[in-house]
């Protein structure tokens, strides 16, 4: 003990000296760290500019391995830098600094009325134009509305601004016309797994069918989803359906937690982006299924990119040659990949018990930290869909004016060269926010200063893996999804 105390005083002296050298030792170090990080991102970014992965321009070429290593390195460095932010007050300020939006209640009331009308109008337009409009995807307003305006544009608004889906949702409004009987009791173990299954199913359908390009198939899926919502709401109760079965409402609910505008009991409030992620109700159903839904959201954004790579073609070719239908190969890949993502995250959550060390049970640890992954999914979504949104928006606007007799070739926007930067930068930005949210969550859950930092080792490892996977997908040449 005395030997230790002596060592400690030596350390204290050294610290004082270092403190005098570096000015104040505390949160400001963290801020300086963030500046360094920004500088690092800017310095490493030219890796893309001079020739992205697989692309060489002039005589400067950055190989893919270095591109991936840079991404993983930025995550590791950002973790190391956040370890300097250990001021509990500063961290709890991040969560608790909230400003009520003036007249939030009125905004919500009117938003609900206008949004509700727009949502219903949109649904009717999709159902009518999907059937009666032209069969070409690029000219059909239903296709452009669903994929460009709704799935690219509206989804981006949920994590950038706030979740407006409860105001718009035409499906929920139709369901609300029927009385809420909730006659069927759903067993507890079901949790949120139906929504996980629904999300995986929807993305699988999007990949293996022509839903993305055939207006008739798209209309059929939208109609089936509407019928399922109405029937499910009437049979199971609206709240049970929305919370445990509806994949769409679940996705927007999670994305909305990243945003600066949050719903309160009777109004709206402004928060710092990502701060509301700690409010995700981890114990609402079962912890396993709540974690499962977050992982599903992360995995489907990855799956979308993965099936368009030559690597997938190489993996699937021998299986398809054996006689397995292509659609089933995709289904299997969807499940295997999901199990892999879930397993890696669950394994990391178990490791937290020894890296902390802590006695907290793995399901509780996993449920506490899973919401921190949502910004990663948002980053992928933004990087993937922003170019598509900008390109197709003029076509959506022109076909909206004359949905049944649109021009032969609706206008699309030519994109500037810098747009290739949006992908890697938003993927990295999503990961950086995830590292920070996870760090601040750890200080909420654990004791002292070192235990919260050490608890993050397994998650940082997982996030580096996810980053490398995501950047690797961006670096792959994109092909048409094969065998279907």
């Amino acid at each position: 003990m005395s030997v230790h105390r002596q060592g400690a005083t030596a350390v204290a002296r050294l610290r004082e000296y270092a403190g005098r050298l570096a000015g104040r030792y505390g949160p400001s170090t963290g801020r300086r760290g963030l500046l360094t990080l920004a500088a690092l991102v800017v310095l490493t970014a030219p890796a893309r500019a001079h020739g992205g992965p697989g692309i060489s321009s002039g005589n400067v070429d950055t190989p893919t391995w270095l591109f991936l290593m840079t991404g993983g390195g930025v995550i590791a460095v950002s973790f190391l830098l956040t370890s300097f932010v250990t001021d509990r007050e500063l961290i709890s300020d991040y969560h608790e600094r909230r400003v009520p939006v003036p007249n939030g209640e009125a905004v919500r009331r009117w938003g609900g009325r206008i949004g509700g009308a727009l949502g219903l109008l949109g649904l009717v337009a999709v159902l009518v134009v999907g059937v009666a409009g032209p069969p070409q995807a690029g000219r059909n307003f239903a296709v452009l509305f669903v994929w460009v305006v709704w799935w690219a544009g509206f989804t981006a608004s949920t994590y950038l601004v706030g979740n407006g889906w409860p105001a718009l949702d035409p499906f929920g409004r139709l369901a609300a016309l029927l009385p809420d009987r909730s006659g069927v009791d759903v067993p507890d173990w079901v949790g949120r797994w139906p929504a996980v299954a629904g999300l995986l199913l929807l993305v699988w359908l999007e990949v293996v069918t022509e839903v993305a390009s055939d207006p008739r198939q798209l209309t059929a899926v939208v109609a089936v989803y509407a019928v399922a919502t109405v029937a499910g709401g009437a049979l199971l109760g609206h709240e049970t359906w929305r919370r445990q079965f509806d994949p769409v409402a679940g996705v927007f609910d999670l994305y909305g937690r990243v945003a600066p505008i949050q719903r309160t009991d009777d109004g709206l409030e402004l928060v710092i982006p990502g701060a509301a992620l700690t409010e995700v109700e981890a114990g609402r159903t079962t912890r396993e299924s709540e974690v499962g839904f977050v992982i599903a959201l992360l995995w489907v954004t990855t799956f979308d990119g993965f099936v368009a790579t030559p690597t997938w073609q190489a993996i699937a070719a021998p299986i398809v040659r054996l006689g397995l239908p292509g659609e089933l190969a995709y289904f299997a890949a969807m499940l295997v990949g999901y199990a892999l993502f879930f397993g890696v995250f669950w394994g990391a959550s178990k490791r937290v018990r020894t890296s902390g060390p802590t006695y907290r049970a793995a399901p509780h640890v996993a449920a506490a930290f899973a919401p921190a992954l949502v910004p990663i999914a948002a980053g992928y979504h933004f990087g993937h869909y922003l170019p598509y949104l900008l390109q197709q928006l003029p076509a959506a606007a022109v076909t909206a004016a004359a949905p049944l007799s649109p021009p032969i070739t609706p206008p699309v926007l030519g994109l500037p060269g810098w747009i290739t930067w949006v992908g890697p930068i938003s993927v990295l930005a999503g990961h950086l926010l995830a590292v920070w949210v996870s760090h601040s969550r750890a200080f909420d859950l654990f004791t002292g200063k070192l235990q919260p930092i050490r608890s993050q080792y397994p998650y940082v490892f997982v996030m580096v893996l996810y980053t490398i996977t995501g950047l690797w997908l961006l670096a792959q040449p994109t092909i048409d999804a094969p065998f279907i």
Partner: protein
Amino acid sequence: MTDTTTDAAFDIDGDAERCPYCGRPFATDHLRTLHVGEAHGETMTEEEAERYADAEDQESDDLFVFHLKVLGALSFIMFLFVYSYSFVWSG
């Protein structure tokens, strides 16, 4: 916030050091002492307050050593990148 301090949130193997106020289990005595100060600062005894002050000193010393290691790791990563990029871009 979401997790309570009941045993349901914990999975305990062997002897846990428990907080005398809320019963929360800890893997080390050091962590328990810190917790008592952080969570029960107003009700703790004088002896516990002393132990907490010691534990806090210990914690910030350990944190300082940890941060030295972090600076080492950062320098290593920077070196690795500068080296890799200059190697790749010069060739």
